[in-house]
């Protein structure tokens, strides 16, 4: 669950114009946002649990170095949320521990 966002957009900037899904829930975002920025803007601060201890983590460096913002994007696990720009309708899910084996076992 998100807490109320403690971040606000600058009033004279562009409006939030698209919708993405985070864990199935609609989140408004701005074209040009990275996934991680859009989630922070919406108050989602825990974006994965670790494969080691299962504790929650959220975006840390926002520049592709720390790999803390790993999320599943349109079915592809362990994407760096700070390195991917949002698209309308994009489906984002928190990573829960290690990735799973892809479906469709031959």
């Amino acid at each position, binding site marked *: 669950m998100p807490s109320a966002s403690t971040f606000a957009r600058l009033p004279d900037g562009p409006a939030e114009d698209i919708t993405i899904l985070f864990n199935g829930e609609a989140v408004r975002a701005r074209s040009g946002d990275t996934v991680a920025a859009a989630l922070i803007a919406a108050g989602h*601060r825990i974006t994965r649990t670790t494969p080691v201890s299962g504790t929650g*983590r959220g975006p840390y460096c926002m520049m592709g170095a720390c790999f803390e913002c790993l999320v599943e994007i349109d079915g592809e696990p362990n994407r760096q949320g700070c390195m991917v720009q949002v698209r309308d309708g994009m489906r984002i899910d928190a990573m829960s521990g290690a990735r799973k084996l892809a479906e469709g076992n031959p």
Partner: protein
Amino acid sequence: MTGRVQLAVIGAGPAGMAAAVEAANCGASVVLIDEQPAPGGQIYRAITSAARPGKAILGDDYENGAKLTDTLAASTVDHWTATTVWQVTPEREIYMTRDGASHRITADAIVIANGATERPMPFPGWTLPGVMTAGAGQILLKTAGLVPQAGLVLAGSGPLLFLIAAQYLRAGGAIEALVETTPRSNYRTALRHLPGALRTPGYLRKGLGLLAELRKHKVRHVKTATRLQAVGDGRLQALRFSRAGRQHEIACTTLMLHIGVVPNVQITRALNLPHDWDALQRCWRPRRDADGATELDGIFLAGDGAGIGGAVVAELEGRIAGLASARALGTLETGKAEARLAAERSRLAQEMAPRPFLDALYAPSPEFLAPPDDTIVCRCEEVTAGQIRSYVGLGCIGPNQTKSFGRSGMGPCQGRLCGLTVSEIIASETARPMAEVGYYRIRPPIKPVTLGELAALHDDQAAAADRSLENAS
């Protein structure tokens, strides 16, 4: 995106843009490769975006970046955006991924200008959701116009902390407190370097201006805080610290950390270039000469990735490396190159004048170099400082052996967030100098690459012979 190029520049920050433009203007054919969708690097992030916050918020220094992106746009440089480099070889091959496909090119010369990363600032609780770097805060502001309205604490040391505080205040944001960890002794050490710094007084003037903005907004400014601890049940709820022997706690939902930046050495390390320990900046510097040339033929370095100097220094170093590589490629006549290089070097010396003062003043507090036992040092594999110390007790002699003992540095960030700390802890435990303890061996891919991307590596050069042995372990 295959085959041969004349000059490849890696990183489109100030150093990379300047190097690319300078070499292209000398007649070299140049590709500029960068991970982001637009030029600017982290310092000028989103500078070409119409949606970026205005000058009134981000300030003149940021707007200077537009001059660079304008000259880049007007140049013949071929800019490959959203392209992740994952290996550079001494033979000047560059492997990269773009749109889910891998490519390999070979360049006659390479300028590596991959910039800096925030110095890790480990203390108990720094992994809690809600804790992020001050650089991350700036990126949120520049790219998404996001300004904290409540619950923000800034902590650490260094000019960026004051800059982002001022930017947030100008943007109507709220700051609960700025908690400075600069040790008192730093002021005395720095004083010695003040005369040198006054040769280029602009930096100091700007710094004092930022402090005045904080005072005007009556931001709570704590100085000489120690024993930081972020606490919260599953997410950040407060920052605790000591000051003058007393415990303090400030409730917060966002904690932005900064104790300076350090060169991103992943590529230069993977190239096996020699690195020197900079005892003042407490970081590794890949070795290069005054032109940015390394011991590897045709490979040059520029900008913060080779040693921290800031955006203006990076731009000057970029020009120098651009000119030097053009000279090496034969598109700039040696005599002309010398005159222009001399001019850029003299400007560089002027810009570097305040560095010793700033480096001494904002030298990181020892508590963040070798943090307390209960601090997670390797965020990916969740290895604590205490565990690293216990490995040393078991006979672990260096950072590479800690990998075998407890997987530190083996997660997806590939040691970026723990490399310095693990070496500092070993150096302190074994009373050996950092230069002797060394650093992780960094192995490609320097950014994770999928099996599918590697399997589809596009490569127009002859495949190496498959010298397989049926009898491999």
